[in-house]
């Protein structure tokens, strides 16, 4: 049974695209057929992070408008057979996305993939609402700072109101992915603590990705961090998050804090 996940945040620059690539690759490494879909029409980035920018021929808009078949637009990753990319168009804008077209593409992807990970554009406009519309679950990417937290809260409200699931009266599954977390700065009070963010957003925690140079390095090399350096801290955190997304029970580790406290926190917070 295919599962459609939207990676969203409201605010820009918090790590949606990086997280889409890293989670997509981590799920594909488990041997499950995964496609990452770039919904950021006009400002596409996912192809760069995936290292596929020179292999884009057709894109999401071509498929939505019926100019190309889905199989023509899908790009298979050179490192992982199970990982695919559906790139966005760089020359068009988000008005070219139609609700019916997106629904058709998602339904078609459901036929041949286990995981469909949609990289949402920033904002709460057309691109973002279409990316979340057909999702079964949402990963809300948040940085530990007030503006990101408030934007995430806004997005959670929209997930509960403007998605197909919500309109059918079902509950949208939502997960919090806390990225760029720096334990030292959180301890000094320069950043919000994990507890504070969870208290404000009140959705279950999927993972905490530590702030690390490894993430930026991988992005610049055109590889998801989970493929580029499988042993680094952010890679391990993304891999654990992917396992939790797949329904496994994995104890939560908060970077820089004692384990006993963490288990207590996880037990209390995560549903």
């Amino acid at each position, binding site marked *: 049974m295919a599962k459609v996940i939207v990676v969203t945040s409201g605010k820009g620059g918090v790590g949606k695209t990086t997280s889409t690539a890293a989670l997509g690759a981590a799920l594909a490494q488990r041997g499950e057929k995964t496609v990452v879909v770039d919904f950021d029409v006009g400002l596409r980035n996912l192809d760069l992070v995936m290292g596929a920018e020179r292999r884009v021929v057709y894109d999401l808009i071509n498929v939505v408008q019926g100019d190309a078949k889905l199989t023509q637009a899908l790009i298979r990753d050179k490192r992982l057979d199970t990982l695919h990319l559906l790139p966005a168009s760089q020359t068009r804008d988000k008005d070219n996305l139609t609700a019916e077209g997106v629904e058709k593409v998602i339904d078609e992807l459901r036929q041949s993939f286990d995981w469909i990970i949609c990289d949402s554009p920033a904002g709460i406009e057309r691109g973002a609402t279409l990316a979340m519309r057909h999702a079964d679950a949402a990963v809300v990417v948040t940085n530990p700072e007030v503006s990101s937290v*408030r934007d995430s809260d806004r997005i959670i409200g929209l997930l509960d109101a403007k998605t197909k699931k919500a309109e059918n009266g079902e509950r949208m599954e939502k997960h919090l992915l806390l990225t760029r977390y720096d334990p030292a700065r959180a301890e000094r009070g320069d950043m919000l603590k994990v507890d504070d963010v969870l208290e404000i957003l009140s959705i279950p925690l999927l993972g905490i990705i530590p702030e690390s140079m490894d993430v930026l390095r991988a992005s610049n090399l055109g590889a998801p961090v989970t493929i580029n350096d499988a042993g680094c801290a952010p890679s391990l955190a993304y891999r654990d998050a992917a396992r939790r997304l797949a329904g496994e029970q994995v104890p939560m580790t908060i970077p820089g804090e004692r384990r006993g406290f963490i288990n207590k926190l996880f037990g209390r917070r995560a549903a």
Partner: protein
Amino acid sequence: MTKTTAKTLTDTRPIRLKGRSFLALVLSPELPFSNWLERLDDLAARSTGFFLGRPIVLDLEGLDITQADLKDLLGELGERGVRVMGLEGARGSLIGANMPPLMKGGRPAGDIEPEASAAPAAQTGAAAAASDDKADKKPEPRAEAPRAVSSIVIAEPVRSGQSIVFPEGDVTILGSVASGAEVVAGGSIHIYGTLRGRALAGSIGNATARIFCSKLEAELLAIDGLYKMPDDMDPKHRGQPVTVWLEGDTIKAERLA
């Protein structure tokens, strides 16, 4: 005498913004308008002055008309002494300058039957004599049906950008109210989580309404149109379980035991 500086306020009393709800008569015109206006004239002839001076809301839902049509219709109604105070169900583009504003959020009330003008004329004899006795007394106010105290419960957190508006009564929220969210209630507001957004209680002119929350981090508190910003709040109440009420023109707060 020299010029006085215009910017110095001598009267620093706060401006009060209040909500009031009125029962408005809603007319729903039908196409073709000429036919509908004829029927309206007929009704007006039977019940003299039914529309005179009464504020009317025009419901344009489902009418396929242009701005020029609407202008003509408003003109025709104006000639008949019908004063349109607002338009409902119209596209924004339909409404030109100098037209009544668009109204939203109307709730249905019972249909109103215009009383026929023939009825008062039929009252003679005994009725007239009886009314002579009590000529100086006003007619008994019709006993109003006791209105049920209504309230709603919101079982989820109120997220940033969301707005809960409930002019009919109390609002109870089991979760938190996020920064950038707002709760507007005709009665009191009860929040069992943290209040980080705005809470406006007693919005239809109820000075006895209160706000309760388990943790006060509000961006704005208002009761009966008087409001308070975080800077004016006592810092000792920050982060505390608090009840907020109105005493005269002052918003008071106290820690809940």
